[in-house]
């Protein structure tokens, strides 16, 4: 079964084609990496899938259901969660609240319950808080629950953002450069974490990344983009050896 299918996606900004006919498929439970030079249109693809940009042309199917041009806020309910290239945490909210907000969005009570503090309120709140703590622990953020998110070091903010996305219990997770600003050692840890996440939450993952150590090790398949187009697709091994990819992206010395 295909978790996500992208067909002939196009998007331009004032005459510039940022994404020009991209198609790829993410099979359920698999991890797909997207690489490509800066400005190739990778992030734009994410924004198209998650509805933040309006698709000019093309189709996006999620488990066979057409989700093209769906409003962003509806997608998490279907099972799509994402992180952002330039971190978008709720910077003045605590670490705990950042995670809790996503859980309560997923399993919430209604207005009457919140106003009159019904049993449902206490039950759902309790459950949500427990789950938030679990996630925070899983991402090694315990002890920092009450820190405002923007007081965390960069790497921890990245982890928190992933934790928040996972709190939505998605079927697919889109992560945009999770390793940016981490040192090689931290990237290794992240790789480990992502692997566990995938295992534990039985997810499909799409990852954009410039750090080859991460993307080549985690991906089952890699899509390479340049100038908005897909220049190739294949296993990490195939991609690393491809002439066009080396020329446009990896550089000669990489080998």
């Amino acid at each position, binding site marked *: 079964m295909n978790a996500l299918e992208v067909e002939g996606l196009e998007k331009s900004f004032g005459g510039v084609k940022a994404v020009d006919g991209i198609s790829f498929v993410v099979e359920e439970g698999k991890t797909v990496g997207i690489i490509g*030079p800066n400005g190739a249109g990778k992030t734009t693809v994410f924004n198209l899938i998650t509805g933040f940009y309006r698709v000019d042309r093309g189709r996006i199917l999620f488990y066979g259901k057409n989700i093209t041009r769906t409003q962003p806020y509806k997608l998490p309910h279907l099972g799509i969660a994402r992180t952002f290239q*330039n971190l978008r945490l709720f910077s003045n909210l605590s670490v705990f609240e950042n995670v809790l907000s996503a859980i309560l969005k997923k399993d919430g009570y209604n207005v009457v319950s919140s106003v009159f503090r019904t049993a449902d309120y206490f039950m759902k709140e309790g459950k949500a808080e427990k789950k938030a703590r679990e996630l925070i622990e899983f991402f090694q953020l315990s002890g920092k629950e009450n820190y405002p998110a923007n007081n965390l*070091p*960069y790497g921890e903010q990245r982890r928190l953002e992933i934790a928040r996305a996972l709190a939505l219990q998605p079927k697919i997770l889109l992560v945009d450069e999770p390793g940016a600003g981490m040192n*090689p050692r931290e990237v290794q840890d992240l790789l480990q974490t992502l692997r566990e996440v995938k295992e534990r939450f039985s997810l499909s993952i799409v990852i954009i990344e410039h750090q080859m*150590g991460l993307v080549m090790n985690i991906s089952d398949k890699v899509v390479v983009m340049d100038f908005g187009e897909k220049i190739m697709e294949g296993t990490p091994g195939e991609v690393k050896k491809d002439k066009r990819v080396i020329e446009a992206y990896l550089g000669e010395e990489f080998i």
Partner: protein
Amino acid sequence: MREKEQTGEGKFDMLMKIEGLSVAYGTIRALDDVVLEVMPGEILSVIGANGAGKSTLLKTITGITKPFAGTIVFNGMAIHGARPDKVVKLGITIVPEGRRIFPDLTVKENLELGGYPITDRALKTELFDLVVTTFPRIKERLKQHAGTLSGGEQQMLAMGRALMGNPKLLLLDEPSMGLSPIITREIFSLMRLINRDRGISMILVEQNAHMALEHSERAYVLENGRVTMNGLSREVKSSPGIIEAYLGV
């Protein structure tokens, strides 16, 4: 700013000397008694984990952040606590974390801003020529709004902008972040080129420790705001503790 504090022997060999530098954000200590020296014409790298205080160190040198203790002497002048615009005029410019170019201004205007402290027209033209020859890609896009450049180009612009200030010391905060492998290498070799041709000293802050150690002569390791190690980059690179903590397998 105080005038030349010390004129003791040997002091002038050193471009910058930092002693006992401590910085706190509220109750969080970001830098703790940091000692660091920069020699003229060298590339110095500073590596460390997330939140170790690397950016804070650079921000404190430029005057954006004020230390609560310690001294920074640049070219014989004490500059700790001085306003950033004064520091820049003395010849320290920075390529900030996350590039932070002016997106709505054109590439050319960005470069002009970099040359803001320079009053000598001839020098300005010279610097401009230097930048456009070093970064031919920038030259093609002088009229474009900087916000529409790709990540790599923005990084080049940020470097060009810093060079326009005619620095004696260039601070680079994670210049490779978010850049593709090919561009990363390009940026590093350009950096080396500038260092070689113009003799500009650099402090290079990097997460990408492999790259940083490869391209620098000396290195400092920062942990929780303290310098835990320093020495020649090649030595640092082969130290087991460093491999374990920063370089990975």
